[in-house]
Structures are given as C-alpha cells and as structure tokens.
C-alpha cells in the first residue's frame, strides 16, 4: 500500500460563508421570513432616508441673514445660523458673552478632567467643581462682585439657561438626596416617615405641577417683603423634585452594600456618621454614578418644561423664533436643531453611564 503523507493544502472556506455575502446570508436572509422582513425594512429605509438626507444636506441652505437666502428648496438652516447667538446665550448682553464663555470653558475642562480616567487628583478636582466652581460661575454669569455688571436672570436663556438649570438642579439635589435616602433607611420612625412622605409626594406628581407650585404658590409662602427671582423659584422646584428621585437612586446604592459592611463598621466601633461617611457612602456613591447620570439625563430633558412658566430655555427660544413673522414656517428646522443639541448631550451621557456600568461592575449584583 502506498502511503501518501502529503496532505492536500487547506481549502479556503466556501465563498458564500465568508465576507459580505456570508454575513448577509446569516444576518439578513437566514430564513424566508427574514428575507421578506429585510426587503420590507430596506425599502422603508430607502424611501425615508434618501429624501431626508436630500432635505437636510444636499438641498439645504446654510448661510445668510434672512429667509431670502433659502432658495434651494431643502432645509433652511439659515434660521438657525442667523440666530445662533440667541440659541446659545438667550438675551444676554452681547458685549458680555465672554463671561458666559469662560464659564462654558471651565465647565468643559472640569467635566473632561472628571470623565477621563487617568486624571490625577480627581478628588480635589471634584471638590473644586462642586464647591468653588459654582461660586465663580455665579459671579461671572450674574455679576455683582469684582466690578462685574449685573445681568438680571430674565436675560438668561438658550443653551446657557438649560445648562444652568440642569447643573444647579443636579448638584444641589445630590446632598439633599443623600440625606433623604439615609433618613428613609433610618431606624427613627419620625425621621423615616418624614422622608418617605417627602419622597413619595414629589415622585407622585408631574414636574409641571411642581413648577406651577414654585411659580404661583411659593410667593405666598414667604414674607411679602422678600422678592424671589423667577429663575430661583424654578430652581427651588426642580431641586425639590429632583432630590426625591436622587434619594431613590442613593437608596438603591445603599441597599446594594452587603450587610457585612455595616456590621464591620459597627464592629470597628465607628458611630453612625463615621461608618456612613467612611465606609458605606464612598462605596454606594461609586455604584450610584450610573444612576446619577441617568437622573441627570432625565433632568436635562425636563429642563425644557420651564418654558411653560415663562423662562426662555433652548426650546423656548426656538418657539419664540417660530412666532417671529420673519421666520414663519421653519418649525421643522428649529425642532430638528434643538432635538439634535439635546440628543448629543443625552446620548453622550448615556454612553458614558453605560461604560461606567461595565467598568464599575464589582460583581455585587450577580
């Protein structure tokens, strides 16, 4: 018997199992039903996407200062570009834009420093961002000290106001939320019931009614002599509302800490505040970051509701622009632009929170 030890060379895999064809066969046309679905979905995509792209980019007009510049028949982005300053700064005096810009720049640097993983001294940066930065930002935006001209809050608007509402809302709601969550898990019945009632009331009503309450009822609650800024009233409402949601996020974090940790803290002889501050909360807060980011996303979207009580956030500026007789009929462009701005912020944050969730997965859950 002749023994042939020469192996035949490996053949390449069959053509229709690799490359684009193989991929399509497996993912798009694996069964008759799948093929039909693919064809229908592909057709629907084709008839909706092609005109949309044509409208938004190919036939669009970008530059100009009035509607006469829109001649191509597609989207009229001139409506946006001509008013871009208003969308960003609201009615802030033009010569003082630099003050807002400094705040924007500081904010972006701080956020970047906190988000990037390898930044050193993160603790110090976080404390600076939470304690010093708000003071600087207040004096820059509102003025008052250091020879800065005062800009009344009714001139604030646009993206700037949206960011102020969201950032102040979340930063102020965080400490209240932590206190409420600790109170809800407390052994003291009076403390516990107060906290439960507070949380459940705010979580059970819509934000609009809270804003209405802040704008029409709050002035009745305080002495007549004290006048209360409209923006401040809205912020009080938002913080109350948001701290209830924050409390539930924190409660989730506290519950996820194994019981052994509480017992260990007690065994070491730490009192309540020390065991919370040194052992429980640092761990819980770390676990809560994705939840906090999600609350922040919800809050960021909810800031658009302030237009109902007459503040000019980004969405309200667009609404106002649409009722300008010079720009009637460009509502789609306006909404697409605002939707895009909100989407970029919210989508970015949600991606960040998902990345964090993967990174911080310490195996407590499973």
């Amino acid at each position, binding site marked *: 018997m002749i023994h042939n030890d020469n192996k035949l060379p490996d053949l390449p895999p069959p053509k229709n199992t690799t490359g684009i064809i193989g991929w399509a066969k497996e993912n798009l046309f694996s069964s008759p039903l799948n093929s039909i679905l693919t064809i229908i979905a592909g057709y629907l*995509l084709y008839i909706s996407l092609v005109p949309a792209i044509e409208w938004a980019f190919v036939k669009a007009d970008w530059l100009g200062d009035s509607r006469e510049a829109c001649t191509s028949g597609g989207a009229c982005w001139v409506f946006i570009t001509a008013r871009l300053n208003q969308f960003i700064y609201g009615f802030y005096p033009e010569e003082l834009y630099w003050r807002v810009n400094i705040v924007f720049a500081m904010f972006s640097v701080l956020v970047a420093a906190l988000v990037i993983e390898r930044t050193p001294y993160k603790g110090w940066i976080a404390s600076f961002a939470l304690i010093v930065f708000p003071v600087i930002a207040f004096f820059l935006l509102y003025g008052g000290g250091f020879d800065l001209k005062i800009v009344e809050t009714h001139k604030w608007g646009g993206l700037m106001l949206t960011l102020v509402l969201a950032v102040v809302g979340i930063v102020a709601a965080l400490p209240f939320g932590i206190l409420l969550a600790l109170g809800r898990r407390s052994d003291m019945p009076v403390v516990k019931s107060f906290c439960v009632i507070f949380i459940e009331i705010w979580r059970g*009503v819509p934000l609009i009614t809270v804003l209405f309450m802040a704008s029409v009822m709050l002035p009745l609650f305080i*002495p007549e002599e004290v006048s209360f800024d409209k923006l401040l009233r809205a912020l009080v409402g938002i913080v109350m509302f948001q701290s209830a949601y924050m409390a539930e996020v924190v409660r989730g974090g506290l519950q996820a800490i194994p019981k052994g940790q509480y017992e260990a803290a007690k065994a070491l002889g730490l009192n309540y505040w020390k065991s919370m501050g040194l052992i429980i909360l640092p761990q819980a807060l770390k676990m809560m970051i994705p939840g906090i980011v999600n609350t922040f996303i919800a809050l960021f*979207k909810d800031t658009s*509701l302030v237009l109902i009580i007459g503040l000019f956030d980004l969405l309200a500026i667009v609404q106002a622009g649409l009722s300008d007789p010079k720009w009637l009929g460009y509502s*789609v462009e306006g909404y697409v632009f605002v939707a895009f701005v909100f989407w970029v912020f919210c989508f970015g944050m949600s991606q960040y929170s998902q990345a964090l969730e993967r990174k911080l997965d310490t195996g407590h859950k499973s």
Partner: protein
Amino acid sequence: MPENKHNLATGNVSFWNDPAKRSLVFQAILFLAVFAVGYIIYQNTQHNLESRGITTGFEFLDAEAGFGIIQSLIPYDETHSYGRTFVVGLLNTILVAALGIFFATILGFLIGVARLSHNWLIARIAAVYIEIFRNIPLLLQIFFWYFAVLRLLPGPRQSLELANVAFLNVRGVYLPSPVLGEGFSWVLAALVLALIVIFFIKRWARRRQSETGDQFPVFWASLGVLIGLPFIVFLLSGASLQWEIPELKGFNFRGGLTIIPELSALLIALTIYTAAFIAEIVRSGIESISKGQTEAARALGVSPGKTLQLVIIPQAMRVIIPPLTSQYLNLIKNSSLATAIGYPDLVSVFAGTTLNQTGQAIEVISMTMAVYLTLSLLVSLFMNWYNKRMALVER
C-alpha cells in the same frame, strides 16, 4: 442592641451617649422644626392672601366657569361650574393616559422584541429608534408633532380621506361614529355573558387537563364564544347599529367622531417616547432568561411559539413588571405636558384656566397634585398586586 441594654442596666451612662434617648431627642427636634416651618408658611400665606384679597376655601367650585373647553367626555358648556371643569379635565387626562399606555405597551413590546431579532437590519432599526426617541425631550416631541406635522396638514376642503368615511385635516381626524339603536343593550349583555362563559370554560379546561391530561383548545373556543354570542344577539335584535359619517358642511366637518389634533399630537408623542423606554425594559427582561431555558424547552420538544409563551414570557414578566409600572406612572405624569399645546387635560383646564380666573392657587394646585398622587398610588397598587401574583414562589 445588647450593649445599650447593659449600659441602661448599670445606669451610669450620660444622657447624650445613650443612643435610644439621643434619637428620641433628635426626632422631637426634627418634629418641632418641621412643625415650625409649616406654621411660618401658614402664617405668611394667611397674611399674603389677606393683603392680596384672595378668598380661601372651596366655594369657588360651585361658581360658574364661563369658559369653553374644546373637548369634553361629559356634557359641558360655559354655564357649568368650576367643579365641572375639574371633572372634565380629569376625564381628559385619564383618556389620554389610558390610550397612551395601551399604544405604548404594544409598540414598546414590538420594538423590544425587534431589538433582539436575528435579522440584523430589523435589530439595528429598533436600536436606532430607541436611541433617538429616548434622548429627545418629550415636550420637544409634542411640539414637533403638533406644530411641525399636524399644523401642516391641508384644510378641511382638501382633506386627506379614506374610503370617503374617514377624513384627516388640520382641524383633526374625523371618523364615523356608531349610533346605537334600541336593541343594542342586549348585545352588550351578550358580551358580558360571553366573558362569564369563557371564564368557566377556562376553569373547566384546566381541571380536565389536570385530571385526564387532555388539552382543550381554550383560545379558539373562547374566541368563538366572544365573537359568536354577541353577533347572534346582534342579528336577533335587528342589527340596530348604524354609523354616522362625517360630512363637509360649510367650513368644517359635522357629525361623526372627531379627534382633535391636540389629542393626536399628545398621544403620538407619548406613545413614541414611552415605547422607547418600554422596549429597553422588554429587552432586558427577555435577556435575563438564560439561554439554557430555551434550549431545554426545545430539547423536550416544545415548539418555539409555546417556548416563548410558556417558558420565556412568564419569567421575563417578573423582571419587566416593576420598571414597566414606573413607565406607566411616568406616562400618566407626562400627559400633563398637554398644557403646552392646549389639550384640555387636568393641568391645562384646572391648574391653568380655572386657576387664572379664580386666583385660588393653593386649593387648585393641591387638588391637581392630589389627583396625580392618587392615580400614581392606584396604578402602583394594582401593578404591585399583579407583580405579586406573577412573582416566583420560593420556599
């Protein structure tokens, strides 16, 4: 706490170092503080109301409202009272919330399942849908549908029409409305009877299956009873159902059923927005069931459809229901955004117009908040009950 007992027994611990007494003192202080703040607010409010000449109390509910509402489920006109406006607004809120929950659940489940489809294109489209719509503020979406889409529809004369019975134009959707004849109550009675019969068929079939092992086609039998019984009665009672078709008279359509554009815009936006969240909940629920369960069911010879129906869905529901409840609650609360486009819901009619006309902010806002609190509590009670029924029974 044992160490405290020891201290108490020996009695030589100072007052401030005894946790039990300290917490009592702390609670008393907190109670007094809350009480004091409440009292100060009460005093201020009394003073402010007096100096502004605002009356208090709920007498205003009986006064004549004097304003019209564009949609009411119960008879209403300007001569009715403010109390009536409250009911009209409440019913409109319940209407849009119920319809919204219904449509959002269906769309959400569809998209959640599509997101897990083996078809790459379908799964991608579902994912893009979710990422787009949940990251855009709901209010913006409502504005978009109302101002950018429904406002651009043609006027009544150039209405889009379907088979000459349904019409769509800038004033709303016009559909034929059923006109119930005399014998129609018998049909309704037959429907109720059919439901009762189905209940007993189900019980009988389950008992028979556990005794003999024979299966009974419950679904088809129930469907037959549900459709057949009322239909027979309907024919017997003389087919007393007619349709009133909307007609173009003058500048607008008359007759039929009108869905105002405010309701359509709100409903479309609420459905699309909430469905994106529900889809994610459904996906995580289905993904939480380990693949081994599907494989085991298939190995036992259970068909894919039955696997989904009997193995996957019941278990996934346990993961799905609690977050789904929160989404329902969110939808109910979000329906209050109606006020921004003028759909006459509770917030718009009562906390808006009625508040502006009477100035009685405290009563009106508290009533509005109380309604939402009650609705929230009712829905979560029901869903918790349902959740408990579905929950895994352990030990």
